[in-house]
Structure formats: C-alpha cells, structure tokens
C-alpha cells in the first residue's frame, strides 16, 4: 500500500532535488566568498616574508613561517597598548551603553510614567535629523573638551536612540504591567522592580543590544580618527589604519623622491601586518557564531512599531 503524501511544515519549504543542488551551489559560492578573505589573510600572515616578496600573496604559500607572529611578540608595547585600549573601551562602553539604553527604554515603556510621551518624542527626533560630523566635532572638542581622552572613544556611542525604541517595544511585550503592579503592592520600590523583576525578564533583549554595542566599540576607528592624536590612546583598529596610511605616504614619497624625517613609526612587515589584522578579527570571528541567535533575535524583537 502506498503511503499518502504528507505535507508538513518541513516539506512546505523545499525545492525539487535538481533545483536544490543548483541553488545550493549559488548560495554556497557566495557564502565561501565571505569566508575566503579571512582565510587568505590568515595564510598571508603565516607566509615567509621572502616568499611574499618573490611570489606575492598566494592562497597556499610556498614557504610557511611563524615569523610574523614572532615579530608581533617583539614589537610588544605598541600592539599590547592598542589591544588594551580596545578592550577597555569595549568593556566600559558596552556597560555604559546597555545601562543607559535600557533604563531610558524602560522608563518610556511604562504607562505610569507621566512624561513618557515627551521622552519618547525627545528620542525619536534624534533619529529624524543628523547633526552632522562637523557640529559633533565642534561640540566634542570645543565644548566638552574630550579631544585626546578615552571618553572621546566612549561617549559618542554611549546611547543608541534606535536601540532605545527597540528595547521599549521589547519591555512592553516581555514585561507585563500586572507583574509590576503586584510587586508594587508588595511594597517593592521602582529601583527594586527594575533590577529584580524587569532585568531578569529582559535578558535576551539586553544581551542583544550589549552585543551590538560591544561590536560597535571593538570595530570603531572613526572616533579615534577624529579625536585621538596621542600614541597612548590608539585602539587596535585605528592602529591598523595608521599603519596602512603610513605605507601609502612612504610609497607616494618614495616615488616622488622626498625624504622623510623620523616622525613615522616603524612599519611592520607584510606578514606581521596581516597577523595584526588576524588578531583584530579573530575575537569577532570566533565568537559571533555563538551569539548569532541573539543578533538574529535582535532583528525580530525589534519590531520597531507597536
């Protein structure tokens, strides 16, 4: 007896075998293209410097070598300092960002807050208009006097208005008024309600905005480009950028024959530079697959509109 063809949620979405193979190849190629550059840079960082000079960058080097990483250990100070700045800014920034963003979002999510409309609009307006790079620069340097301080790397990204709106929706959906009401009848203060009832219920949302904040801080080079001149405060991403631009300056000036003073920092060799790129990339590349579900959930919790 032939079994009846069953339609269930698995078979609702699926191509026939031939089409499936065809599209697997297309998507597979694109997915590979996203991993290839990182693989390539790792390979370059493990290639012998002489082989690089003779054969150029290759996907599979003629001579392998750990010299790039060994050299990193010797240059020590500069790299470690940048790494430390990056870690510090990321940790402090993420804590500040997730705290301020969620407290603000929580306040405007509560219907018993009389001024919630005012503060909601106060936040929404910031998403409509952009004050622009110049105005921000003037306020940060000339009014707040943050130039060449760590705060210039932290404060410009300390609150995300968009995440506030996302979290407001999340709080409304996740934390019911009745739970809060019953806690208040039991005599809990607003602070206690927030820390002991609301936060545990909102962990997925807070995790999501914290991850986005951490990613933003770790990857940030723009604020450093604008505000940091001191060599002691250069985060890793900006260090990489400075190395790159020094190379260009050198090559441009080599061709035009100008002489340079000793103002430039020592430029690490190719393999070492790529090793630095690997070090800046690996923390993200190794961790995001585990956090991916939070990022994806972040996209869906954030039905911005009610």
């Amino acid at each position, binding site marked *: 007896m032939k079994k009846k063809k069953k339609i269930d949620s698995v078979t609702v979405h699926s191509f026939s075998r031939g089409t499936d193979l065809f599209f697997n190849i297309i998507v597979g190629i694109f997915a590979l293209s996203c991993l290839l550059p990182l693989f390539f840079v790792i390979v370059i960082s493990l290639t012998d410097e002489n082989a690089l000079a003779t054969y150029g960058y290759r996907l599979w080097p003629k001579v392998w070598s750990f010299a790039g990483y060994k050299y990193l250990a010797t240059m020590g100070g500069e790299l470690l300092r940048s790494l430390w700045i990056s870690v510090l800014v990321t940790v402090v920034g993420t804590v500040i960002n997730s705290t*301020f963003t969620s407290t603000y979002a929580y306040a405007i999510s509560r219907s018993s807050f009389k*001024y919630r409309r005012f503060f909601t609009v106060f936040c929404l307006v910031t998403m409509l208009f952009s004050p622009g790079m*110049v105005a921000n*620069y*003037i306020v940060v340097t000339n*009014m707040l006097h943050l130039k060449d301080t760590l705060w210039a790397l932290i404060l410009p990204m300390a*609150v995300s208005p968009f995440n506030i709106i996302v979290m407001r929706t999340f709080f409304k959906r996740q934390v019911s008024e009745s739970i809060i009401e019953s806690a208040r009848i039991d005599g809990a203060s607003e602070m206690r309600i927030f820390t002991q009832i609301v936060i545990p219920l909102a962990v997925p949302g807070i995790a999501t905005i914290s991850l986005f904040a951490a990613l933003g801080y770790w990857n940030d*080079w723009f604020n450093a480009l604008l505000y940091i001149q001191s060599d002691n405060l250069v985060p890793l*991403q900006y260090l990489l950028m400075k190395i*790159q631009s020094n190379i260009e300056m050198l090559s441009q000036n080599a061709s035009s024959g100008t002489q340079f003073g000793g103002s430039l920092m020592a430029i690490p060799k190719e393999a070492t530079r790529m090793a630095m790129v690997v070090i800046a990339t690996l923390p993200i590349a190794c961790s995001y697959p585990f956090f991916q579900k939070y990022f994806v959930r972040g996209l869906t919790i954030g039905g911005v509109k009610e």
Partner: protein
Amino acid sequence: MEENNVAQSPEAIAAAAKKKEGLWYNIVHNGPFLLFALPGAIWMIFFFYIPVFANVVAFKEFQFSPDGFLASLAQSKWVGFQNFKFLFTSDAAWLITKNTLLYNLGFITLNLIISVFFAIVMSELRHKRLVKVYQTSMLLPYFLSWVIIGYFVMAFLNPDKGLLNTMLHTNINWYAEPKYWPFILLFIGTWKGIGYNSILYFATVMGIDPTYYEAATVDGANKWQQIKNITIPQLVPLMTLMSILAVGNIFRADFGLFYTVPQNSGALYNVTSVLDTYIYNGLTSTGDIGMSSAASLYQSVVGCILLLITNAIVRRLDSDSALF
C-alpha cells in the same frame, strides 16, 4: 468651625487634587522614572540637540577659541550664506552629490534584490543545517570593520603582490585606475551587508503561515507560483520599510567604505568622493570648516526632507508600512 473643615465642598476637593497634580508633585511622583531617563536624555542633549544648534557655524566664519564653544561662536563673524555660495559654485558640490546619490541608489537596489533572492532561496533549500552554515558564513563580513575589510581588499588588489594580478597575469595598478572603482565599491558595499539583510528577510519568510503553502500545493501551484503569489507579497511590507529607511539615508554615504577601502588614493577622488569624505577632508586636512559645515548642514537638511517625503508617500500607500 471644625465641622466646616471636615465637610469639604466638592470644589475644595477638586482644588486639592489639582494642587496635588502640580509640577513639583509630578516630578517627585515620577522621580525614579526621571532618574532612569536622565542619563540618556543628557546624552541626547550633548550629542544631538546642542550639535543641531551648533550647525549655525555653517553661517559663520568659524574660528576655534580656547575659551570654549560659546566663545568660539561669539567671536566668529556672521557671513550669511557665503559658505553655501562657495560650496555650490565649486565643482565638488555636484560631484559629491552625484556620487553619493548614485552609489546609494546602487546599494539600495542591489541589496534589496539580492537579499530577498537569498532569503527566499535559503528558505526553500532542503538541508536546514546547511542553511545555518551559509547564514553564519554570510554574516562574517557584516561584523568586521571597514579597516579590516580594507586590508582584505588590499590582499586582492595590491598591485605588486595581490591575488588578482597574479591570477589574471595582469599588472594593473588598481588603486590608480578610477574606471574599476564604481564596480569594486558597489560590490564590496553590497557584499558586506547581504548576510544581515538576507537573514532579516529570511526570518520573515519563515514566519509566514504554512497553511498558505499547503493550500497552494493542494490547488496545484508549483514552487515558482508559490513564491510569486505568497512569499513575495508577504515580504513587501518589510521591503518597503527597509527601502524608506534606506532612501531617508540616501544622502549619507558610508564613510568607512569610501575612505578606507580605496586607501584615500588621490587618483580615485573623482569616483570615490562622497559627501561624508568631502566633509571629513574639509574638517581635517584643508581646515576649511566653513565649507565643510555648509556641506554637512546641506546633507542633514536634504536627508531629513527625503525621510519625511518617503514616509509620507508610504503612509499614503500603506499606512502599516510607514515608519511613523
């Protein structure tokens, strides 16, 4: 006499209640919430509201004063629309506007088509495990900074050692040939964001009620008909929302892409100059804050108007998809 006090008239009760609702009462009563909102509100004042007003420097010949922002403002002299006049009579204004608009139009179109394509295709693939692997790989570029991507591109395009020249047996100096860059920039900009956008659409596809597909299958609809008549119409609201957001930002170029990936190469300025790089260069290297702030204000105002217009159009077409 005492009895009079106890038996209060209705008016007295109302007056007392009104007094209770006074500003001070409200502030105390809402104290914890105000405290919660305070840090964020202060941040918005310093990083949004004051900078918005700081845009008046576009109408001044701005000079930094060590005594702080207000002193700088007071000491700079008013020049009216002079900065704008200089900006719009220069060749740069047209070039950067054109580049910004065309690149962003390219990104919006490519992103929309390719992400929706990948989302639908991935939702129909048979091996769900494999789909997870694809999605994870495609997200990687999204999580990396432009500086890192710049190094990646360098590994391929380096004129002496890059993989592309080696593989094609050519000797092209990529960073000095403007004709390739529109394609390179469009490719890199789209490539970085596809993973994120396609997952966004993918989540929506997976959320479509499966009974639609069951009914369609019973009625004998093939895969293509199902995609055309069920999946795509269900994706339209999100597609509209994403497009409004993108069109509202069409005057804002991705600074990282246009500044770091072409390595700020002078030979490429004609094809890589966009509003943001122009403003940045004016602010730092040429030191022409007046022109730079004029360009910045021009960008913000047009961007804001575009956002309002697109939103109004969408609200008229389909009020559920509108942003506000």
